[in-house]
């Protein structure tokens, strides 16, 4: 058989063995690989967090030296942001978007394969960055994920591995975003007009566009860092006339919108979950879409609120302060929209809905501390304390991670054809939520009392709260073993489900995935469905 014949043949069979995965161009298989990769990274990032909390169990140095502590802390952030949350969201996009909008596959299936298979190499590179300092590679990456110079210019060879990790991850997520945006714009089924689009697709369209705009700026910034380190340029090196603060601007031009990259897919998932279990269409769908646009646009122009202490003039900080406070309007709008969807709905509380309700509550809390941090005179006090750590964990764990959990429980029956164990799901929900709050709530207080972040030691007065925090963290980490078990159990068997495992799943602008069997066939929508 010539290669051309293979090409033209419309094969309905699955490729078998390792070829099915390595050469995959199937959106469902690639989605599965993304999700598995994200889960592995979640455990890796979690393990580094466990080591941090073990070190912080007592004041003084017990387990790791300060440089290794800061390297673990950097890894925790990089792995969770780029290894766990973003690939998990991309995996969901791969799995769900073509089925939701009635497309046979992603628009650019081969690019899709490449964007996934870059990730394991990036992970390997990041692990290398952690290993080489222990074999004579100099000072480890001790900067935190922000990689600020001059510290990042002084670190050893591990930093170069870290920079290349970011390059690979950046290329991967840019390609994934191009694919997703193209799919949503071009591949919608006939009749799937813009304002019939499921909210998850809207959320990913904006996420994809954001990534396309910000990722290249980060890539440029870390490239300059690499040049300063090795090729004698002085973009950031003050000795040659460079300005370290410039890097902060480049980083946060990427870094702040990145928060919305993590948040928006989860908002999209909530936009699917909340109507389903309230058995009511999403309240004010169109304004909700507009508020996502508003959030995206505003998110791009408020980055310097991370840099109030670098010595910007009063006028500039005032602009960034007002812009940042304005962000609470679209975000608040989204949360109200979810609350009004629940209002007088026939609510039931299956695991995805429990997560959704908890997200609305806990994310609002992060919003409140976010406004506190946006206020310049207050921020000068809170800057670089555990208050900030508590704030962004309240934003990212409910806002990004719990949203993904809600999505996993919501779509797991669709993916596997089996219903997950609802009792275990509920136990997982309560276990994670309580232990998460135990971990991070007290960090607000130690932060306000002045405990600085990114330091492996602390004043003995903070011991009690840090031990509460560590106990919470260990429980939070352990809860994920249950999560893993629930997933394995559901994949291996369980109650068979029909096309529509949730009876409320087709209210409002629901996706077309519920018109397919569970699990869906390897190739779905070969002839486009027509949306009425």
């Amino acid at each position, binding site marked *: 058989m010539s290669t051309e014949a293979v090409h033209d043949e419309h094969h309905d069979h699955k490729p078998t063995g390792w070829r099915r995965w390595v050469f995959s161009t199937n959106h469902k298989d690639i989605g599965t690989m993304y999700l598995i990769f994200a889960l592995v990274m979640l455990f890796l990032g979690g393990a580094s967090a466990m080591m941090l909390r073990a070190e912080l169990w007592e004041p003084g140095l017990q387990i790791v030296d300060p440089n290794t502590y800061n390297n673990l802390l950097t890894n925790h952030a990089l792995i969770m942001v780029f290894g766990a949350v973003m690939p998990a969201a991309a995996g969901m996009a791969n799995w769900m978007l073509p089925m939701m909008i009635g497309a046979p596959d992603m628009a650019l299936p081969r690019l899709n394969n490449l964007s996934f298979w870059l990730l394991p190499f990036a992970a390997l590179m990041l692990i290398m960055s952690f290993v080489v300092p222990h074999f004579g590679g100099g000072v480890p990456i001790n900067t935190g994920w922000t990689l600020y110079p001059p510290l990042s210019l002084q670190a050893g060879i591990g930093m170069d591995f870290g920079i290349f990790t970011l390059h690979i991850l950046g290329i991967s997520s840019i390609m994934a975003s191009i694919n997703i945006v193209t799919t949503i714009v071009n*591949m919608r089924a006939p009749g799937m007009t813009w304002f019939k689009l499921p909210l998850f697709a809207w959320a990913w369209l904006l996420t994809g566009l954001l990534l396309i705009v910000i990722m290249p700026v980060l890539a440029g910034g870390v490239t300059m860092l690499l040049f*300063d380190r090795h090729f004698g340029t002085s973009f950031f090196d003050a000795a040659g006339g460079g300005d370290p603060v410039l890097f902060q601007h480049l980083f946060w031009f990427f870094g702040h919108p990145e928060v919305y990259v993590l948040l928006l897919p989860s908002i999209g998932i909530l936009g699917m979950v909340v109507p389903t279990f309230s058995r009511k269409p999403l309240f004010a769908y169109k304004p909700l879409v507009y508020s996502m646009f508003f959030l995206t646009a505003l998110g791009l122009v408020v980055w310097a609120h991370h840099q109030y202490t670098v010595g910007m003039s009063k006028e500039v900080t005032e602009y960034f302060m007002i812009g940042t406070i304005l962000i609470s309007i679209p975000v608040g709008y989204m949360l109200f929209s979810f609350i009004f969807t629940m209002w007088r709905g026939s609510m039931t509380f299956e695991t995805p809905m429990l997560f959704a309700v908890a997200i609305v509550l806990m994310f609002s809390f992060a919003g409140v501390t976010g406004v506190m941090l946006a206020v310049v005179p207050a921020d000068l006090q809170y800057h670089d304390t555990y208050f900030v750590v508590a704030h962004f964990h309240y934003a990212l764990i409910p806002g990004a991670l719990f949203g993904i959990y809600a999505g996993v429980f919501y779509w797991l029956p669709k993916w596997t054809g089996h219903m997950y164990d609802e009792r275990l799901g509920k136990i997982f929900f309560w276990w994670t939520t309580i232990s998460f709050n135990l971990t991070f709530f007290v960090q607000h207080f130690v932060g306000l009392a002045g405990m600085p972040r990114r330091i492996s030691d602390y004043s003995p007065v903070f011991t009690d709260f840090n031990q509460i925090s560590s106990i919470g963290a260990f429980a939070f980490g352990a809860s994920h073993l249950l999560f893993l078990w629930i997933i394995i159990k559901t994949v291996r068997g369980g109650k068979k489900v029909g096309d529509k495992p949730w009876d409320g799943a087709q209210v409002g602008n629901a996706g077309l995935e519920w018109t397919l069997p569970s699990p869906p066939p390897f190739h779905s929508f070969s002839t486009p469905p027509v949306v009425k």
Partner: protein
Amino acid sequence: MPAKKSNRRLALGLVGLVAGMFGFGFALVPLYGLICSATGINSVGAGGRHITESEVKSLGVDAQREVRVEFDATLSTGLDWEVRPKVRHLEIHPGKVYEVSYFAHNNSDHEITAQAIPGITPWQATQYFNKIACFCFNQQKLAPGESADLKLRFVLSPDLPRKYHTVTLSYTFMNVDRTGLRHAVSSR
């Protein structure tokens, strides 16, 4: 297939956007300097202003007012020197020219070239801190075991707002050989 074609067109457009944003990142390097100096919204080159002897006369001395100026020095990583200000602080009159010096000594067994990078605290006082001559305008080269007196002539503008009673001038000395820099730094 028309769908394939439009996919390609859109994807290529997005690739163009990626390339544009990558360029934008690099364009920010000169733009950042330009915007900051044009609008004065940031204290880029935060080492005070460079003025000439003749400009000093136009400032006029405010003999009624005393401001405390403190001197400080820090070594960056990988510079095996000893550096300290010869006087830690001075009580000065704005508008009057003062000369101070820093002591520098190369502790290593090889020649090292260093560049001193100034910083002024509070940063709002930066624009009132005028330097007539400064070792920080040039790179400093010291042979192994060599010592030097690094001179600084400065004058504080009398329009320094009244609320500032103390101004700290801090230098960070950086090893220029280490970073591979060959060219001199523009005047500071």
